[in-house]
């Protein structure tokens, strides 16, 4: 039980991941799905960066002098998360563009209604 208490970052991230995943899967509204997707991605970024954090060390920025290797936290996860953020942004932008196109065609953003409209012959 104490594992959960000590690294509370990771538990927070996992809970957030669960929330994001649920919204993405369960909600019928496309916008809510995209929001859920973003929550999920941020949760993963939190989990990753929390892995890199070492208590009592400061950020890996050299202000004026290099204070030796062990005085900084592990920079790799935060560097990776840069790319992760970019990927999340692009996917969200693409999904939003799609929602707008769907809205123009179907006048609704509700995915179930759209999928059920398979019957009428689309051109």
């Amino acid at each position: 039980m104490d594992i959960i208490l000590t690294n509370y970052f990771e538990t927070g991230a996992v809970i957030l991941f669960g929330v994001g995943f649920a919204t993405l899967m369960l909600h019928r509204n496309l916008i809510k799905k995209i929001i859920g997707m973003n929550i999920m991605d941020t949760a993963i970024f939190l989990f990753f960066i929390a892995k890199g954090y070492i208590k009592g060390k400061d950020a890996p920025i050299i202000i004026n002098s290099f204070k030796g290797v062990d005085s900084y936290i592990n920079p790799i996860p935060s560097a990776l998360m840069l790319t992760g953020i970019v990927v999340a942004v692009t996917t969200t932008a693409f999904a939003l563009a799609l929602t707008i196109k769907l809205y123009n065609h179907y006048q609704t953003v509700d995915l179930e209604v759209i999928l059920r409209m398979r019957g009428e012959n689309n051109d």
Partner: protein
Amino acid sequence: MNKDIILKEVGKIIIPLVQLFGIYVIINGHLSPGGGFSGGTVLGTSLIIMHLIYGEDLVRSIYSRKKLLVGISSSLIFYTIIKGYSFLSYELELPHPPLGNFGSILSAGFILPLNIAVGIVVACVFYIIFSIFIKDEV
């Protein structure tokens, strides 16, 4: 018409400042936090503000869609060539740009030009996405 006079005046002062700050962030990306992505977003937002304040035609005259596209693809090509060169250079012992002394701007070998290229790309892409969403011709 005159209701947005305040906006125009303030815009005249602020937009150059924002763009300057964006360029600053890109340039010493390898020294202080920031770099290509964040600097590019700052530049992109400055374009968006200009679009909002002065209307779409002014921005289109300076940064037409074609010019933006050419900007993106050329900086991307530049980026790929440099990156490819740096990947292969270790194997074939090609000359490396000087690493330069620590802390100065021209110091981190390839990283500076790469940052600039990335900055331009991100700025242009940001503006294009915004303009597409605004004009709804998705």
